[in-house]
């Protein structure tokens, strides 16, 4: 078997290696990549699904892969996962009531900083 493979490899010199999670379009690949970076491995110490080798991470990766292949959107896939695991699985906190403060905090801090700055200057 290996010798046939070697022969083929020699013949098809510009071959690409077999991708573990092959996808049809570049858009799907990008979607898959960014979803894996956005999702948390629940049994690891603060790793995302892209980098973890834990059992559950592999299963969830396969799950996300199948759904991306089926053409599901980000929000559909995320909803599927949060229905089962809660918002904890999302490294990108969704914009919700309790996260509004989090997302606007940088602007608030800058605003306060600018106010203090203006009072001291000019």
């Amino acid at each position: 078997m290996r010798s046939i493979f070697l022969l083929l490899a020699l013949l098809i010199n510009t071959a690409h290696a077999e991708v573990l999670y092959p996808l049809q379009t570049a858009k799907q690949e990008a979607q898959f990549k960014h979803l894996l970076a956005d999702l948390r491995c629940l049994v690891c110490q603060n790793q995302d699904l892209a980098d973890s080798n834990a059992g559950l991470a592999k299963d969830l990766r396969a799950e996300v892969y199948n759904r991306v292949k089926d053409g599901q959107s980000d929000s559909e896939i995320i909803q599927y996962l949060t229905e089962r695991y809660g918002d904890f699985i999302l490294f990108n906190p969704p914009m919700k009531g309790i996260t509004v403060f989090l997302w606007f905090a940088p602007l608030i801090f800058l605003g306060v900083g600018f106010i203090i700055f203006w009072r001291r200057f000019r």
Partner: protein
Amino acid sequence: MIAEAGLFSLIIALFFSILLVILPSVGVIKNLSILQLTAGRYVFGQFLFIGIAYLCLTLCFLRDDFTVIYVLTNSSISLPWFYKFCAVWGGHEGSMLLWVAILSFWTLCVSQFSKHLAEEIRVRVLVILGALSAGFILFVITTSNPFLRQFQILHAHGRDLNPLLQDPGFLFHPPMLYMGYVGFAVAFSFAIATLWLGRVESAWVRWTRPWTLAAWCCLTTGITLGSWWAYRELGWGGWWFWDPVENASFMPWLVGTALIHSLVVNEQRGQFKAWSLLLAISAFSLSLIGTFLVRSGVLTSVHAFAVDPQRGLFILFFLLMVIGGSLLLFALRSQTLQTEKKLNSVSREGAMLLNNVFLFSAMATVLMGTVYPLLIDGLGLGKLSVGAPYFNTVFVPLMIPLFILMGLGAHLKWHSDCLKTVLLRLSGVAFFSILLPIGILFFCAKVINPSALLGLVLAFWILFTTLKAVWNKRQSRGLFHISQTYWGMVVAHCGVAATIIGIAVSTNYGMQEDVRVALGEQFNFAGFQFQFVKETNLKGPNYHGVQTQFKISSANRSVTIYPEKRIYNVGQMAMTESAIDVTPLRDVYVALGEPLDSYTWSVRLYYKPFVRWIWGGGVMILLGGLLALLDRRYYKT
């Protein structure tokens, strides 16, 4: 015996630090200078005995004394000797001992190199450093004793150091990081001493500056090393994860950077000293908060130590006393400092303090993101994760105006300047900063990625404005009249530009692929030809595994790299040792995943253009800091 000697030494050191706090303080209150002068002796005593304690712990490791629990859990018989030396700081107890040792070292340095300081400040600084030492030594002895013994497991072989730590990066990263964290205690102590004294000496800036710069340089090195090491070691091709422990080191760095700049404003214009005091207090406070976050178990982290809520409680109490006390002191005493007259915002000092607004907001944002899951959980509102996607989204927009400001700042005059004139003068630079990246990206990469373009535009903006500023100075004053500190600024800012280039290009033009590769297979990736040449069994001092050979060829060059999969004998932990082909302009990175079949592996491939520039930039920032630190103008008495 040695372990007991170590503990005993530590207790003696505690006595010295308590003496350091009490006797000179009495001297200050009762105005007895003879008591004040004894401070130096206690500093030395503290340093000596902590040193002995640390040496004892190291000896326990080198001699494989597994009756010491800490050695049992962090070392093994087959661990190479240089890793045994590092393993001393591999766990919580030992790393706290290192903390304490480094604090005593900084205290000794302050005692030795501050003879030119007014005695009343000097003694107060040493007292405060002593108080910090006393608190930490007490913490180690009561909750984190590295010298605890066990006599049940005899003839043990040790549980081995975490394989992730068995890497050269581990020799340098933690000590450098601690030198930085702890180094900010000096600036902190200067600030508190000043508030205690009740007045700010005009020389305060000159006294605080070197210690702040030194600590900042160490922290810069520590963070750069940590990022490089994570990239090499973890096999995921990432170099920054916004992990709580990383954030814990980044926040003091951001505030330290703000402090360095505000000190310049203090020096040039004599104002905003209260703000610098607050920054000095904040920098070390963030070091302490970082210590709490990492060692108390409130947050999950890849780097976190073994947790114990009791330790968390002690640190929290310590935090409350030290930081709460300092902020209270600041509130009560800082208004006795001179009143500020309003300055012109369009000026170099305005730009530098505006940069403080951005840096401080950035720090607050990182703190908020790190602590938010805790806040939400504590309020009973559920479990949330705040990870890299959040931080990347909010941090980058915060930095963009800062980078633009960086370029402007060097061109604004002190006191006041006209913004329109400056912008007009720099319009040519701006034009080239936009045009050049477009051209470069178009010719080198054929595709222009907008994020990368933005990064490059900002980097070139910083680079060109900085170089133009040097050119202007050369015209007006000549190259040899440019101060070393100014060169430090130039090098450091160019370093920032280099880092931005590294980040922009490697993130946006990098490639990644997870593939299935069989022995002998040839394949293409990122324009390179790969071949999985060989697989051999591997046996190391405390691990066994598989070593593979991959040949990477391009038009003019061929190189062989050796990614490995190791299983460490004691813990049976599998580790991937990625192999990287490094050149200044790109990295090609191969990490073994799982064995899929006989002689077939899942392999992760990365192509990372310009990634080395990230750490190259970090080194330049360090060099810039060193140049400023070693500027002799500040040391002429």
